[in-house]
């Protein structure tokens, strides 16, 4: 263990003393791991939405290898398995609705009367990997570089990032900045759909094509550009400030700017085009702007209490040029009820406004007059609560385990209803609540 200067040494002494006294978890100063050790985190997340909607199982393995001299190599592997059904964007109807498979490659599905149409063919496996290396460039400066990639059968994402952090005032203040770049390729089944083009072969029998969209090469009139894929690039810039206020507390403030350009649509999401009775005439593919700029600010305060507990409070505000503003308030209290065990209740409240182009449905013909429209509930106005708790062990030799159980409840506020069909649509539950349960089991050890 090569410690660079007296200040680093003192910081390491403080950290080591806190570890000895069993309060090491709350400090930002970490005793450096000796060279040649692996610090390994493993976890499995099980996510289950109610009403047999999305079910996910996600094992994660992350290892950080210390090369000594504050040089760390990190590798992370995530496997996601998703099954279940997800709303396709269409509104309920008084009669059963049948939706086609894309280009006949997958089967269609039928939704009963008055039910929210769910695409039950939602099944995917995602593999994601991260490689990262961080190293000191001076006594107070640390540089990090990383690459990441993820792959699904219809989606490929590749990214790279570079980060720099600089410590001031005996490491009590850290300023950091990061830049990341990501390139995504979307290759949906049946090809990328044309925005606002009609989805083929639905039972509403519209059949007349999606209007004046430029789909000249859409030979089979299914609303999709056969075999076509599309791309998106995302650039993120982050600025961060971390301030140690006293030996027991710290404050953190981050600003981030995210700029995304290219294909933003969900290729499997549609909107119902309804008549004044609220019943669907046909379905059209969604259309989103081809760029999105997000700004976010994040503030966090963390404090060690009674040499035993940790209180962690954070707030995040995000605003984008699609008209979505969101607020997140997160509260966690870790109660170290015994020397080696803790329980941590957790509460989160989230609220967002709808995107300017969010529509529950479009009125007949409206698809030809609007540029953008989406019925994706993720772009709707809603509040969400997460409540749960985590139990785990801490500072045990050998390894620490944890288990987290959380409940999620999303309560949408209906908006984006076309006036002409408002009466007709009022008989349907246009935006049902969503609830989910999440269980995370983790094990952390050094090797």
């Amino acid at each position, binding site marked *: 263990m090569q410690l660079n200067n007296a200040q680093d040494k*003192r910081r390491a*002494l*403080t950290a080591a*003393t806190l570890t000895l*006294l069993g309060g090491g978890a709350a400090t930002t100063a970490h005793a450096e791991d000796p060279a040649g050790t692996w610090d390994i985190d493993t976890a499995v997340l099980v996510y289950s939405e109610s009403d047999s909607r999305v079910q996910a199982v996600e094992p994660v393995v992350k290892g950080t290898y210390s090369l000594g001299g504050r040089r760390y190599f990190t590798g992370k592997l995530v496997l996601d398995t998703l099954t279940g059904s997800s709303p396709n964007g269409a509104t309920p109807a008084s009669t059963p609705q049948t939706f086609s498979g894309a280009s006949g490659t997958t089967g269609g599905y039928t939704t009963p009367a008055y039910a929210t149409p769910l695409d039950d063919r939602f099944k995917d496996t995602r593999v994601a990997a991260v490689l990262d290396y961080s190293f000191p460039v001076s006594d107070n400066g640390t540089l990090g570089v990383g690459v990441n990639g993820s792959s699904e059968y219809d989606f490929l994402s590749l990214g790279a990032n570079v980060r720099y952090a600089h410590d001031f005032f005996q490491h009590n203040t850290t300023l950091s900045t990061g830049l990341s770049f990501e390139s995504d390729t979307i290759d949906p089944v049946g090809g990328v759909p044309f925005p606002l083009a009609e989805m083929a072969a639905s039972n509403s029998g519209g059949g007349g094509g999606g209007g004046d969209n430029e789909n000249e090469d859409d030979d089979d009139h299914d609303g999709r550009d056969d075999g076509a894929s599309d791309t998106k690039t995302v650039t993120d810039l982050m600025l961060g400030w971390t301030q140690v206020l006293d030996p027991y507390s710290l404050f953190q403030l981050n600003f981030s700017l995210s700029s995304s350009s290219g294909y933003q649509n969900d290729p499997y999401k549609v909107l119902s085009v309804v008549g004044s009775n609220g019943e669907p005439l046909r379905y059209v593919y969604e259309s989103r702007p081809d760029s999105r700029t997000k700004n976010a600010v994040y503030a966090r305060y963390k404090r060690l209490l009674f040499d035993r507990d940790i209180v962690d409070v954070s707030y995040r505000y995000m605003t984008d040029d699609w008209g979505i503003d969101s607020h997140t308030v997160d509260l966690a209290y870790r109660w170290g009820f015994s020397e080696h065990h803790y329980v941590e209740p957790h509460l989160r409240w989230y609220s967002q406004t709808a995107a300017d182009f969010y529509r529950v449905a479009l009125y007949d013909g409206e698809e030809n007059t609007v540029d953008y429209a989406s019925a994706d509930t993720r772009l709707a106005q809603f509040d969400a609560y997460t409540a749960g708790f985590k139990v785990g062990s801490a500072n045990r*030799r050998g390894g620490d385990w944890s288990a987290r159980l959380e409940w999620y409840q999303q309560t949408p506020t209906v908006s984006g209803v076309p006036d002409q069909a408002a009466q007709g649509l009022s008989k349907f539950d246009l935006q049902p609540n969503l609830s989910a349960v999440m269980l995370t089991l983790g094990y952390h050890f050094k090797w």
Partner: protein
Amino acid sequence: MLDAANVHVATACGGGYVGRFLAMASPCEVLCCDAGAEETEALTRVAATEVLRIEQHWSRYRNDNVVYRINTAGGAAVQVDEETARFLDYAQHLYQFSDGLFDVTSGVLRRVWPFDGSDRVPTQAAIDAVLPLVGWHRVRWRSPELQMPPGMEIDFGGIGKEYAVDRALKCLREQTSKPVLVNCGGDLAVSGPRSDGSQWQVGIDLQQPGSPAPTVGLSSGAIASSGDAHRFLLKGGIRYPHVLDPRSGWAVVGGPRTVTVRAASCTEAGVLSTLALLHGANAESFLREQLADAAVWW
């Protein structure tokens, strides 16, 4: 037999109560703002139980504890309990932190350094004879297993008392939210400012009769002092204090009489004050380098 029952409560000079007990060869006391005699006694009992537990656990004067098992293992590996393992991890950290100046195996040097106020300074030959039994680098520590050559000994005395103060304070905090202070022979820690928001006023005993005790205000954290007032050898006009450099085996001469350090924990304060003494004449520059909040008396 050490017994937590030997606790008594008296009226403190400020008007409140003070609980007293003897442990680690030091008078110990517990102060709690706004606590009555009964509560002070109960809290003192809690603190005494913890301090005496640590003393029994790590005392080198007992034959029924882990330190005895380690020191009499005769070269065999010894499995240690979790708390001892954490302490040995910490000892290893301190050894590296101090470039070998802080060494839990240095107790063997006492065999040649009597520190009885006499002039019996050992010869270089006598020191050379025991030096091979000193040095953490000779110890194989693979938590939870410790193995060292026969004849070597470990001794947690250097920071055991300060650790006990921190532990006792932690136990008291689990019992009460009122402001408390734990003091063992001048090494002390507080849970926060007094209930009226003021600082605790702590007198530093320089152990020099006649000189007034300087006071230090403390609203959080801890204070530890190291000094050599009573234990030294005097020969040829040179004062050899009870401060031994484990690398040379020699007493560190020319250092301060007393060093007091204020830090977040008593353990950390104790490490810094002990190391300052081991730096001898360079004590103050060491403390400055460590950004330590300290006072030094020569």
